[in-house]
């Protein structure tokens, strides 16, 4: 590996890590927009620092960025405290005004003689390939202590982010802690400008943190996980930009981090969309199965009791259900041995009859409860019981039955099957 590539990889992964760690707190404290505004606000600082010092010394440019970024942040604070302008408007104003001024200055500098040699435009989209050993040292000099500080003060930052008032009541200097956390965030933004660029900096803060949040409910895991996702995104993105000619680093890093986020959004076990979809499908399948069992049971009741064979068409007529869903639910029921296929149609198996009686029991008990305790008329209670029969657990049913004094008929005069009986 060449020395240049090593610099790029180290720099980008350190930056991604910093972004993930501090981005986690920014995400939870709803400061994502603040970091975006600060990043954009830093552009005029970079250009002015170049004009004033006439050099491309990274420290000078970053100090310029820092000064302008902090000015932007303070301006937001001032505007929201002292005027009736809301925070989101203040973010928008600072972001666009500072960035606009920065672009004007940048254009002016680049049009001046020899100006297009400045390479200042790399601050817009980031160019990790320009990272030199001196840049890397600068990143490490500020970035490593920042990580250490978050590690040491983790408990305090957690308390502050979750319950500021309680933290203050314990005597914690919440203002100072908030300012420290915000200062660290600004520091990361400024350190990342050269690598990721002003425009996309916010994504390196938000995407890894949001991705990590999907996988864990514990901040002590979320923060390091976000750091890991950020670090890997940084390394992979930098590598891609190194291999593909003309590919700026910022977008490459952001694309990788976003891919991690989208994957987490879909696939995370509890909060993921795929899991949610499967759970929902599972619930609707269970409801359809229970409805079919109940329908077969009532057909038997109507025929004078016992298990009778019911043609498929008759089942379809009873319920407004797509044929495809009905078949799927039936396959699931026959597979479980609860329903049998006979030449005359479908029939409950002995086990299926017990299961069906259980559903009917819940339905009729709930109807009885509604009409007796809420004094609803008989014709009001059926629809509600249609829902509750799929929701009530065994404990709730037992409590309900106790409360009702073990009734044997529902408000319509239909028998309530006893527990465990077909």
């Amino acid at each position, binding site marked *: 590996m060449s020395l240049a590539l090593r610099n790029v990889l180290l720099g980008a992964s350190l930056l991604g890590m910093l972004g993930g760690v501090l981005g986690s707190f920014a995400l939870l404290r709803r400061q994502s927009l603040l970091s975006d505004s600060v990043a954009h606000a830093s552009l005029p600082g970079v250009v002015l620092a170049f004009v004033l010092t006439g050099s491309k010394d990274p420290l000078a440019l970053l100090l310029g960025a820092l000064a302008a970024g902090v000015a932007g942040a303070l301006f937001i604070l001032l505007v929201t405290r002292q005027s009736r302008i809301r925070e989101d408007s203040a973010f928008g104003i600072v972001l666009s005004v500072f960035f606009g001024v920065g672009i004007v200055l940048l254009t002016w500098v680049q049009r001046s003689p020899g100006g297009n040699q400045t390479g200042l435009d790399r601050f817009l989209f980031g160019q990790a390939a320009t990272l030199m050993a001196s840049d890397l040292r600068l990143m490490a000099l500020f970035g490593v202590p920042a990580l250490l500080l978050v590690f040491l003060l983790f408990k305090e930052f957690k308390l502050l982010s979750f319950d500021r008032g309680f933290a203050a009541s314990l005597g914690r200097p919440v203002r100072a802690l908030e300012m420290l956390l915000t200062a660290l965030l600004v520091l990361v933004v400024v350190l990342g400008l050269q690598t990721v660029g002003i425009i996309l900096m916010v994504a390196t803060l938000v995407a890894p943190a949001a991705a990590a949040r999907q996988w864990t409910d514990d*901040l002590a895991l979320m923060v390091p996980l976000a750091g890991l996702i950020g670090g890997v995104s940084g390394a992979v993105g930098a590598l891609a930009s190194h291999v593909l000619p003309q590919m700026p680093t910022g977008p490459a890093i952001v694309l990788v981090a976003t891919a991690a986020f989208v994957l987490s959004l879909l696939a995370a076990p509890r909060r993921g969309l795929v899991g949610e979809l499967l759970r929902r499908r599972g619930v609707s399948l269970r409801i359809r199965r229970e409805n079919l069992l109940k329908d077969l049971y009532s057909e038997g009741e109507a025929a004078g009791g016992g298990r009778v064979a019911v043609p498929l068409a008759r089942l379809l007529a009873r319920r407004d259900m797509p044929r495809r869903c009905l078949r799927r639910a039936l396959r699931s029921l026959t597979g479980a041995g609860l329903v049998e296929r006979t030449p005359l149609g479908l029939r409950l198996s002995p086990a299926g009859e017990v299961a069906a009686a259980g559903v009917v029991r819940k339905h009729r008990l709930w109807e009885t409860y509604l009409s007796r305790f809420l004094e609803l008329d008989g014709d009001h209670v059926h629809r509600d019981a249609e829902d509750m029969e799929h929701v009530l657990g065994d404990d709730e049913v037992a409590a309900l039955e106790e409360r009702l004094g073990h009734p044997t008929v529902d408000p319509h005069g239909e028998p309530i099957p006893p527990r465990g009986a077909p």
Partner: protein
Amino acid sequence: MNPDATAGALPADGAEPAVEIHDLTVTYRTKPVLWDLDASLPAGHLVAIVGPNGAGKSTLLKAALGLVPRNTGWVKIFGRPYEKQRRLVGYVPQRESVDWDFPTSALDVVTMGLYGGLGWLRRPGRRERATAAACLEKVGMADFAGRQISQLSGGQQQRVFLARALAQDARLYFMDEPFAGVDATTERAILELLQTLRAEGRTVVAVHHDLQTVAGYFDHVVLLNMRLVAAGPVATTFTDENLQRTYGGRLTVLSQAAEALTRQKPFARDRAS
């Protein structure tokens, strides 16, 4: 709560009041919220702070805790400024004041009650977690220790907050609407808890919104409507006449004056711009 290392179990009827408030005025921006408040809350009692919306009930708690700046006056906790008595005071903020989707567990939230004693750099260890678990047990939430807090019902969340306050092992508790929006089970659990705290000689000062239950749940009451209307034992203070003075006739001279002060600021700004 650790029974043998407690600061709380002192005799209830010391002559010294738990909270003493003198000439307290608090304003938000220019709008006055509390005006010239004097009150003395006795130790070892359950004290309800009662008053209409915007009467400054929460603000009174926050001013006592130093969470909002005081314009004038002082608050003393057991005879000394709050800053020197923090370790004697526990706080239960309003449930809505935090983001319950925060990535943390019930046990973890309760452990935060011990941060005051842990200092800045030490992390909670096995002992702290055991204490926190015991506090969860006391509010009937032992089974939910590992649960992410967004998966708890409103009443369960409130009980987690109370368990955190128990972990603080305080002599004086400030609670902001502990009974707001909770289920019947939680309401009973909180009530039992308050009575236990009082039996242990601790003091609870709670913002309370349900007039029906003031007399049943508390023994002292502070009636508040920007200024102090009345304070004292429920039996003698929680009278129809005092309630009428607290709630009746919202547009008193005082609140009209407050409105006038609030309106003035935008005018001044218009002229300047």
